[in-house]
């Protein structure tokens, strides 16, 4: 913990806050893309410390939150196949879709296994040759390599009983979609450091240039976040708009080539539905034709259920940073972590959960 304490040192935090305040000649609006950063900001009260200098709006970088309801409904349909063992990360269990959530599917007799790594699904497929193991593969650039490796391992092992329900998403297309939105207020981005540990910062250069927006690759501890914010407002103050890496202790500029190779061998960019943002071109990953036999949708003949509205939930606008969780009439009343109406209240990276947890305000 000594290592972490350095990045949470209160005296250093207060000095950084002062430096940011001194830099700002006006109040700037920044978006932190990643839900992990949103939680750290709320947990350490950085939003409050910076309130008069910087408005932090919270981005769509919560993989559970942006997974479309249709994918969840497909997962629920899969659990109705008696031979299926559906493997997923724990956060997905309570996200409501039109057909209920996976917890309810489990209570109704479906088999849903919580896993910590996609490779756990490979192990389960080996242990249970009589079962059809389906991996619900969600997440951004960071989790796609492990899903790709799961496919490559299954191929090498000749496993015929593993398939994937793929809903991987890519961050840069979502950032572009936010910037072209006529309601956009984002003046600078804090880009998620861990996405860059895989992808590097290259993908951001085109966005920074095209939209004249500074993008600072930022970590997850308070001191990292404040360093990223400081760099971003410094750029804004002097009219710069470039990609800057303030998380180079963990995220090399060129990312991780081996991880990217595994991803591009198994997956290819596809159009993807984002909850709250609609269909975005080349914003997701799908299995390449050579690996189509691992596609659960085809294997089980899944029909995509009708999309349904989100009811009173304003998750879509929250995920685009247009409204705050506390703007939602249901926040903290009809929608709580016990009775979530939308994914951002469920996920450990969701903005609504962060507001309720750390500010406890309704």
């Amino acid at each position, binding site marked *: *913990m000594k290592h972490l304490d350095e990045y949470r040192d*209160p005296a250093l935090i207060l000095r950084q806050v002062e430096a940011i305040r001194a830099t700002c000649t006006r109040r700037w609006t920044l978006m932190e893309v990643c839900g992990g950063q949103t939680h750290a900001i709320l947990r*350490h*009260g950085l939003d409050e410390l910076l309130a008069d200098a910087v408005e932090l709006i919270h981005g769509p970088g919560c993989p559970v939150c942006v997974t479309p309801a249709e994918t969840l409904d497909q997962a629920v349909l899969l659990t109705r196949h008696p031979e299926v063992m559906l493997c997923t990360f724990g956060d997905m269990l309570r996200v409501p879709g039109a057909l209920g959530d996976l917890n309810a599917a489990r209570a109704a007799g479906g088999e849903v296994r919580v896993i910590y790594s996609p490779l756990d699904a490979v192990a389960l497929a080996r242990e249970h040759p009589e079962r059809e193991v389906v991996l619900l593969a969600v997440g951004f650039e960071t989790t796609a390599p492990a899903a790709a490796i799961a496919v490559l391992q299954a191929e090498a092992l000749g496993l015929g009983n593993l398939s994937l329900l793929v809903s991987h998403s890519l961050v840069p297309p979502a950032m572009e979609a936010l910037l072209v939105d006529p309601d956009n207020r984002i003046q600078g981005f804090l880009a998620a450091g861990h996405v860059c540990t895989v992808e590097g910062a290259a993908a951001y250069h085109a966005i920074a240039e095209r939209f004249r927006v500074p993008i600072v690759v930022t970590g997850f501890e308070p001191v990292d976040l404040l360093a990223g914010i400081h760099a971003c407002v410094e750029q804004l103050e002097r009219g710069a708009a470039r990609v800057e890496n303030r998380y180079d202790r963990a995220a090399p500029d060129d990312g991780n080539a081996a991880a990217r190779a595994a991803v591009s061998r198994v997956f290819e960019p596809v159009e993807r539905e984002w909850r709250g943002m609609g269909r975005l071109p080349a914003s997701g990953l799908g299995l390449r034709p050579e690996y189509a036999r691992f596609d659960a949708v085809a294997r089980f003949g899944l029909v995509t259920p009708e999309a349904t509205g989100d009811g009173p939930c304003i998750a879509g606008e929250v995920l685009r940073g247009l409204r705050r969780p506390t703007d939602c009439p249901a926040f903290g009343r009809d929608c*709580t972590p016990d009775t979530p109406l939308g994914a951002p209240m469920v996920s450990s990276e969701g903005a609504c959960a962060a507001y309720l947890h750390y500010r*406890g305000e309704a």
Partner: protein
Amino acid sequence: MTTDVVRLAHGGGGRMQAKLLDEVILPALGIPALAAPDAAVLDAPGGRLAMTTDSFVVRPLFFPGGDIGRLAVHGTINDLAMAGARPLWLTLGLILEEGLPLDDLRRVLASVQAAAEECGVRVVAGDTKVVEAGRGDGVYINTSGVGVVPEGVQITPGAIRPGDVLLASGDLGRHGVAILAARENLGLDPPIPSDSASVAGAVAALLAAGVPVRALRDPTRGGAIAALQELADASACRLVLEDAAIPVRNDVRGACEILGLDPLHSACEGRFLAAVPEHAAAQALRILRTRAETAGAVAIGRAEAGEPAVIRRLATGVERRVILPAGEQLPRIC
């Protein structure tokens, strides 16, 4: 015994059951084999009695720093202590799963006996049932406890007043993380030991010294936050914790960081939180720090007038309201 595991017949009320009682259970508890009556008849001391019951379904049965037997004694004793009571008697209800190795049962019973003896309480009544293999998790235990509340002692959450100091009797959140690490084979080296212990002696020492304790609460399931929220609601006070003062061991913090847990949501099984008037805080801490089980006692915050809430004041001065976790952070920890 003819077998080395529990069998259904051990709960059948016949000779097998009598043998289990006479040869395993009663000797382990230091109770002479006798035709047990249906009820214990006890000489009640004068004054008010405190009574409580608790069931224990922890998995795994044995974990670093304790086991279900110790937990079943400490859990109930601590509940009595939180009412200011001196624990006197316990009952022991065992639900055994067919196939449980008798050696495991002996280990659990030896733990029950050792913990009861350390705490100066007697097991005065009990019951044993056996369920089919697959219908239990080895052993479930229920303990009920009776204690006596000393004259003049009036401890209740509603008694907290603005200005009172909140004390923690030691590091927080350890038991929950110890169980999680043991259950999920997290491979922490060295393993995090549970904090399972009786706090009745420490509470008695405070009361004997005349510390005017207002409220006591043991932060079990739901952790310190759940306990503090109850105290805040009952007393209609705003409870403000100084984040930097909250005692959490480095290994527990590290494990929580990796697992995405909050140590204040994680259970303790050998700790208590106390509210005392400001003038008595130093004396209370002095007394607690002379005892091994409460050597790490510290002040963690204070009660203020205001909307009932639990607030964490960060070292940067920012105040964050803290709320209860949605559900169980982790099931089956006690």
